């Protein structure tokens, strides 16, 4: 199931499916509608939790504290993200964010169009480069439009990031 965070199109389709199902199974329509609403509520709650998790991680990246984001990840070893990335902001000229919660609600995948600030370190093989690093610089900066693909997993403690990469 894919949900478009800025569109209710799929919600509408789901509602349509919910409305169509009771006739087939012979259950009272009110009961089926109630279950559909519960499922929708659960999905919306999952999406909200995932968005909050995503925002937390982005804040860590954008404040230079990405190395202290291990608690947001399923496993500490996958928390290490591309060290050249210094900032990630939404690319509002790209596609809307998309979060797809898997059936059963135990995992999800998000795709985020974003502008990525990359700072590639200059090799410290000459005096000038060494001095540039010594003053906190020594990087070549550029901004690229990329798509961030993030896999999430639901644990007993809530949603965590299982994998993050550029598509």
């Amino acid at each position, binding site marked *: 199931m894919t949900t478009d965070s800025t569109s209710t199109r799929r919600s509408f389709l789901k509602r349509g499916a919910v409305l169509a199902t009771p006739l087939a199974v012979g259950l009272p329509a009110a009961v089926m509608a109630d279950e559909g609403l519960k499922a929708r509520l659960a999905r919306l709650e999952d999406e909200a939790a995932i968005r909050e998790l995503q925002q937390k991680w982005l804040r860590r990246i954008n*404040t*230079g*504290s990405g190395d202290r984001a291990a608690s947001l990840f399923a496993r500490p070893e996958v928390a290490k993200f591309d060290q050249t990335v210094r900032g990630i902001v939404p690319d509002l000229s790209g596609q809307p964010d998309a979060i797809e919660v898997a059936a059963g609600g135990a995992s999800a995948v998000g795709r985020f169009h974003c502008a990525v600030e990359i700072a590639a370190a*200059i*090799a410290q*093989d*000459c*005096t*000038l*480069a*060494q*001095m*540039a690093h*010594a*003053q*906190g*610089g*020594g*990087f*070549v*900066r550029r901004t690229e439009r990329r798509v961030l693909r993030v896999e999430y997993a639901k644990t007993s403690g809530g949603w965590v990031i299982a994998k993050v990469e550029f598509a």
Partner: protein
Amino acid sequence: MPRTPYPNQQMHRISYTKLSQRQIADKLGAVAVSGPTSVSPNSDVFAGKSIRIVTDKGPALSYTFGRNNRVSVVENGSGAVDAGCGTLSLNGVVFFSHMIPGTQRGYAVVIDQDTNLATVFELWFSGYQDNREVQREIYYGYVEKAGQQPPATRHVTTNRVEGKGFYWKQDNGTETLEFYPSAAYSHFVELSRLGGELGFCGPSDYIKINDDVFIYTRTECEFSGTFTAYVMDLNRVEQIGMRLGFDASDQLEFYVFRGKGEWLGQIAQFEQFGDENGAPVPAAAAGQTPAKGARRVYRPFLTMPKMSKAEVDATCAKKTAAFAPASGPGAMMGGNRGPSTGWLAGKTLTLRYDNAPAMEYRFDDAETLNWRKEGDNNWTKARYQAWESMPGVILFGHLLEGVPNHDGHSIVADFHQGLVTCFNGYLNTPYFANEAGVKTLFGVIEMEGLIPPKYNRHHFTDEMVGHAVSQNYAPGLTSMHLYSTPHSLSWIIFTDTDAGGLEWSGPAAYVKIRDGLYFLYWLEEACNGTLGTVLVNLHTMRDVGVGYHCGAEGLSMSAVGAHERLAGRFDVLRFYQVKV
């Protein structure tokens, strides 16, 4: 008796004593009680008065000023301590300094009587691994006035001093040229103490009192560790300040001074318009809280590899590389060198130097040559690269494998004039064997169809002295040269906001090749040991050259090339004329 103004050793060659805390305490003892000396009469502006200074993130200091330079100071409400204090004033701005007897701490305080704003420098010894290096923390605040609200503003760090330069003469006779080409460092030439041969650098603070009056500090890190601070009025070109530290003989200097100067000019700033931020180099890494007194300090002598002759011979035998591929060590310094030339390919010539053996060359192709010293039978093959900076003027360089001191030649040959200049780099120098030395060789080109001059030669010049030229070697690698003396230059590294950041300097020389074309070198003595050579073309504003370096990774010669911008000029030549 004849007498010269030069010291036995320049600052970067002095082996400053590692003073112990006990030694420092002993030397401070009596002076802390008596206070700083002063040639000029101390100001009595505060005599008989009491003031309380409140700082935002620092101490509250209560002072009661007596006569004869005595002061009673209370820190944060603790017990009063009597100390000697030097006080000077300059057009409503008061500067005073004192130590706290029995400690290795003291203060320098600036008060603007018009605004009641105060800047407090807490100073201390034994705060770094080298105890003699004075540490400082800056606090901003105000003088408390009964019945008045605290002022809303504060003195602030600024880049408004960046690009300025002054000649200063203190009341004690000390003469200096002081350049502020960075917002975080400064460059100074000691005219009276050291004879003005070389310039040196130190981390600095620049603080705005008002549009005309600023506070400057400098700590001579990597050298004596001496701290200097002064208030300067840019229009009147007057200063009041202090100096605290131990000189090369470990004698304590603690004095306040008054000085007058001359404006030397203004060079360019490269920050965006509207950017007047000071302290462009953060004291700590992003996300970290700086420790008290923290600042970024370039410590090249501390960090440079120091090798023996045996180690140099071993590393040169292990790896020697000339003009490694574009991704190799030092490649970024050649990012904007432009296309090389193959003009020398197939040619045979002799470079006949006046003061060194003639060098014979056979150029196989655009990157391979054979050389031998005149009189030798055997040729040695070497990799080279060449660039034609101006029509008929070719710079090329190569290593001389097999010679005892692992020489490298950086050569500018003017085929229109038949003249050649060679910066002959070599190793096994007296202080550290991997530190490059250089000999400048002048001579002529002998080759078929070319008649060289009999008497004319390239020559050393001071035409570039005082100029500042920025270099962009590659994306993210940008600096500026300040040609501050006839025998040294300084280089400034720009920050991400294009403010001047860390700065250092070394011995240098300048040779005029043609109008607007200068061949120069600098030595990174007590700093990586590199010999840098560039041919600066003021017509095209591009420099090209070669770097010669020996370190643990081996001996290398690599291309240097940058796009340049003329950043202005200081009027300093008059200070370097021979005086009789």
